[in-house]
């Protein structure tokens, strides 16, 4: 296509937007609402994913060493733990250190347990990390079978709960988004249908004087594209601005070391581009839907 022609298509497409006034407004609003919800869920899901994966990194198996184990037995155990292929690291935490950390973690309350220092009830512990967090459970079971292991502990329950929660959010979000996307496509298709009806004679004449279908189609594509991308402007600005403010206010200080929100960059840029893309696709799809029928002359 020649650039001059392309310029003409853009001009025609924009003219159509103005001509359709209210329908244009309705379609853009539909896209705006849709993308707003899409964007909000996107931010939520991305953060939950981030949270989940940082938690995954934190998944460790605590192997409690049998109290009766001698020093050599412990060394033997440490070696056999290290022999597992799937194990990334093994860290030895003697019971004194374990108690220290326990007391520290309680802060002031920890003072009550100071007396335990003489008669330490804790076990020596090996902290084992799996290379793949998903393997944690299998490894834990295998470790349980080893000699001098009193027991193992790993955070499976939290893990399962977290994943069922994120799955729930994903499913609800996806359902909502699909519904809204179709509403938006439908509205855009209708707006463009209005344009086409208003320009029926023009299209007919274009066909009679030998315009190709793609030549006729282009202005409508552009109209759809504009509807979609214009609809993305408000959600992108509101969500970006909102997230920045939100992050500034509480992002960095959730109080939980393993739960951090994703930083503003590049998250907002990614979401914005994605929203823009979805808007464009929705718009073009809507126009394809309504133009197709009309070109069979």
């Amino acid at each position, binding site marked *: 296509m020649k650039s*001059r022609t392309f310029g003409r298509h853009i001009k025609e497409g924009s003219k159509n937007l103005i001509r359709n006034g209210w329908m244009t407004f309705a379609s853009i609003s539909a896209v705006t609402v849709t993308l707003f919800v899409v964007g909000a869920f996107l931010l939520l899901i991305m953060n939950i994913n981030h949270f989940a994966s940082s938690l995954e990194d934190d998944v460790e198996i605590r192997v409690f060493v049998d109290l009766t184990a001698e020093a050599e037995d412990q060394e033997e155990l440490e070696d056999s733990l290290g022999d597992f292929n799937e194990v990334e690291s093994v860290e030895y935490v003697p019971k004194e250190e374990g108690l220290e950390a326990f007391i520290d973690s309680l802060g002031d309350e920890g003072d009550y347990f100071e007396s335990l220092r003489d008669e330490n009830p804790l076990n020596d512990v090996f902290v084992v990390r799996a290379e793949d967090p998903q393997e944690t459970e299998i490894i834990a079971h295998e470790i349980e079978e080893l000699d001098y292991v009193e027991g193992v502990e790993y955070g499976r329950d939290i893990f399962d709960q977290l994943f069922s929660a994120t799955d729930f959010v994903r499913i609800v979000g996806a359902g909502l988004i699909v519904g809204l996307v179709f509403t938006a496509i439908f509205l855009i298709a209708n707006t463009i249908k209005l344009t086409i009806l208003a320009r029926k004679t023009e299209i007919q004449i*274009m066909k009679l*004087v*030998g*315009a190709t279908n793609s*030549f006729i189609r282009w202005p409508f594509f552009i109209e759809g594209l504009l509807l979609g991308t214009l609809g993305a402007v408000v959600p992108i600005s509101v969500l970006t601005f909102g997230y920045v403010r939100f992050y500034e206010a509480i992002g960095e200080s959730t109080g939980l070391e393993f739960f951090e929100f994703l930083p503003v960059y590049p998250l907002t840029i990614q979401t914005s581009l994605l929203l823009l893309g979805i808007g464009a696709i929705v718009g073009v799809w809507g126009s394809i839907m309504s133009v197709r029928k009309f070109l069979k002359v």
Partner: protein
Amino acid sequence: MQDVWKTYPNGVMAVNGISIYIKKGEFVYVVGPSGAGKSTFIKMMYREEKPTRGEITIDGKDLSKIKEKNIPYLRRNIGVVFQDFKLLPNLTVFENVAFAMEVIEESKENIRKRVMEVLDVVRLKNKARFLPHELSGGEQQRVAIARAVVNKPAVLIADEPTGNLDPETSWEIMHIIEEINESGTTVVMATHNRDIVDNMRKRLIAIEGGRISRDEIRGTYGYEI
């Protein structure tokens, strides 16, 4: 045109076996009562309707075999004029004619030159900036003719071009069409205008009941209506 048939999906058999040959540069009237298949016959020539059977060849191309996506290129070689002009009301005379060149992506400069040339042929050069509603019916039809021939088609098809015009204006239009024909364009014109057919004698094809009832070199209208 070889043994052409057209049956509409609703069962109406509009054209039942028409075979004609129109030479390059010829001027042909197509006459016949309403509903005789005249319009279908005309529509098949610019491939708005597809024949159910038979073949139509224009300039060596078989219209019934032409692919959907190539129809636009076929139409660039055929100019069409209608009874109701089909001008775009928001565009000026110049723009209406230029429109036909724009859609085939001609350069601005070529468009300007050629449009003025054609407007000269239809004697509307001085009204290039007018809008269609500011013109008389005859003038509007002249704009439509200018648009039809601006891309130098081999064939000009006119579907009752004088149907909405008074006799005097009709003659004006006819003289222009004749002029275009004399410059080498084949003209096929469907008409009900007895006065014109009888006084500007050309080859005449009469269609009745979807068949050719007469084909005369310098025919007269011949019906008593």
